[in-house]
């Protein structure tokens, strides 16, 4: 990479998670989260050089989600781009914006409010293509179960808490309403020490849509993303912890193997998929912000500098995967 490429830091993160928010509109939640993260970063929105948004039209019932949300996110008068493929891609895109020299600061906001959907599962079903998969009712849970079935070695669960064999309720991600916001900034644009974490690198990749053409046992997209960050010296060998959003707990376990983590690296310290709920569209973003927050400089910390990765798996059975690596110290 160009030696002039700036170092990028996460200045602040803010998450607003509610099991079921009935008192505030989605737009009000976005406004409040954006205000909060800007305050935490010590920035006026007018000082921003861009805003990156991510929402899912079907989950929230907004046909072009960026329309009602750009204003509450503080985007009036600014360059606003919605990255609709997933919240984790929005954070990556915010990072790319700064690397490309488009200003010194960017606000990234992603959200999901499945409680507005009368049948959130049905909103998921429309992600199945209409010719074959929709007819069989394919959704995230079924796809995750098909994938998990390929990893079964012991006959699988037999209890009555099976949702879609071999997955039980505890194996599946819990959902909630949530808005996730972060301010990224290039070095020199903020007071040193003000940063929460430094971005070391990002990698993202995708596998095929057709599950019949994939080997679901192998997390191909995740392996691709891992290779990208490994190539720049930011691979899993150096991570002290990792936060993984996956379609199932077996997928998280498989991901730790796919990544090849160092001994002692903490996995999902912020909670299991079932105990740390997030909207599907931004579950990866949530884990990335958790990872960034986890490396924040601590008093009386004498160990080696923390490096944490946030991992998102998006689409049926982790069709897509994103890795973002954060460090307590600037990338060497």
């Amino acid at each position: 990479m160009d030696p002039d490429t700036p170092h990028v830091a996460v200045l602040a993160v803010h998450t607003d998670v509610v099991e079921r928010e009935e008192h505030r509109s989605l737009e009000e939640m976005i406004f409040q989260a954006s205000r909060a993260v800007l305050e935490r970063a010590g920035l006026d929105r007018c000082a921003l050089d861009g805003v990156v948004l991510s929402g899912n039209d079907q989950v929230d019932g907004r046909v072009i989600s960026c329309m009602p949300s750009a204003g509450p996110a503080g985007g009036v008068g600014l360059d606003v781009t919605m990255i609709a493929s997933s919240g984790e891609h929005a954070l990556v895109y915010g990072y790319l914006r700064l690397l490309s020299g488009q200003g010194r600061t960017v606000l990234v906001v992603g959200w999901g409010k499945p409680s507005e959907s009368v049948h959130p599962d049905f909103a998921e079903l429309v992600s199945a293509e209409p010719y074959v998969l929709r007819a069989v009712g394919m959704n995230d849970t079924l796809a995750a179960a098909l994938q998990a079935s390929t990893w079964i070695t012991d006959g699988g669960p037999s209890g009555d808490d099976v949702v879609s064999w071999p997955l039980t309720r505890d194996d599946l991600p819990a959902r909630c309403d949530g808005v996730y916001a972060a301010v990224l900034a290039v070095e020199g644009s903020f007071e040193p020490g003000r940063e929460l974490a430094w971005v070391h690198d990002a990698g993202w990749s995708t596998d095929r849509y057709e599950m019949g053409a994939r080997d679901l046992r192998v997390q191909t997209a995740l392996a691709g993303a891992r290779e990208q960050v490994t190539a720049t010296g930011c691979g899993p060998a150096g991570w002290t912890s990792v936060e993984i959003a996956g379609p199932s707990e077996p997928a998280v376990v498989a991901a730790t193997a796919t990544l090849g983590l160092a001994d002692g690296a903490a996995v999902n310290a912020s909670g299991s998929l079932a105990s740390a709920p997030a909207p599907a569209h931004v579950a990866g973003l949530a884990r990335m912000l958790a990872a960034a927050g986890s490396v924040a400089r601590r008093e009386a910390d004498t160990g080696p500098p923390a490096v944490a990765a946030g991992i998102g798996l998006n689409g049926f059975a982790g069709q897509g995967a994103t890795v973002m690596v954060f460090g307590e110290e600037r990338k060497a």
Partner: protein
Amino acid sequence: MNRQHVGVLGVGQSEYVTRRTDVTFPELVREGALLALADAGITMDEVDAVVFPLAPDALIGVGNGERWCVEALGASGKPFMRVNNGGATGMSAIIAAWTHVASGMFDVVLVAGADRVSESGSAQSVLNKMWDVGYERPVPLNTITMLALSAMRYNHLYGADETDMARVTVKNRRHASLNPKAHLRTPVTVEEVLASRVLAWPIKLGDACPSSTGAAGAVLVSERYARAHGLHPAWIRGIGQNTETFWMGDRVGPRSVSDHADADALAVAFQRAYTRAGVTDPGRQLDVAEIYAPFSSVELHVIEAAGLAAKGEAPRRIAEGHFALGANGIVVNPSGGVLCSNPIAVTGVARLAEATLQVQGRAGAHQVADARTAVASAIGGDHQFYSALVLSDDLEEIA
């Protein structure tokens, strides 16, 4: 800014038509990808990353429709993301691809996509769901009425009328008749436009874009890649985006900062692109404008926002024959523009594609003589998301 210059190595467009029954949506996307790759003279193997433009999922009927198109794009195993900025999606995706390259992470980035609005039996009622849940959806706003409101207000403020709007259609249809890819290619007269049926006054059928099916794509490359391979892409010299308030009712009256009659926030996006490109006098320095205007009325205020005419002056300039193929000075929408072809998700990609062909002298019958520089723009949301970029055939200072 511009650590790395970013070039446009190749562009592709299918013909734009009302309906395609021979292909699925991903197969149509694949057409856009293959056309762009062929024009660039590379294969998918050389592509480092893919950016996919797709506006509302509801119009193609598949949620997160980008994931369905990964195979068609040859994106499997590559970094891939989707942009949705409404009608500006195509150009925002180009700007996102520019960002991928300018970041230094990638040398070759593909943008390709498609739309087939005709698959949605109720596009305008789907698009009504763009508006505010509590206040605006109970009123039948849609993309036609929102711009009818703008058109009538423009006409009122500047003393323009439906004949001024009709002249835009006449110019663009004549241009489209020379463009084999355009959807509406039959020339029309002012009288015919004025006699066409009223959709939402003052917008008549003759003032409106078609619902188009088609595909488009582009390959963006880094300067180091172009030099290493001895290639001569067109160059993106400046980009700019800006965003307006969502609330159309906030764009009127003495306390508004921009008027729904005008495209003031788009003027800011143009200015951002011009500043980066070193353009100070666009009407003189630029040869071609491929600007997003799905209704005749929109072209009037976008010409003004682009700095090609003073506010309220576009109707007179068009009546005098300016901005048309063959006229002296900058030509606006030599392809026939969005008014003659509007495949929503890739309409902004098509603007870049046409601008590229023009600055490289490859536009065929609708070529602007000796064109070297161009500006392209797009609009999304309820006249809310604005994108602009400046293109030239070399990296010389734009004089």
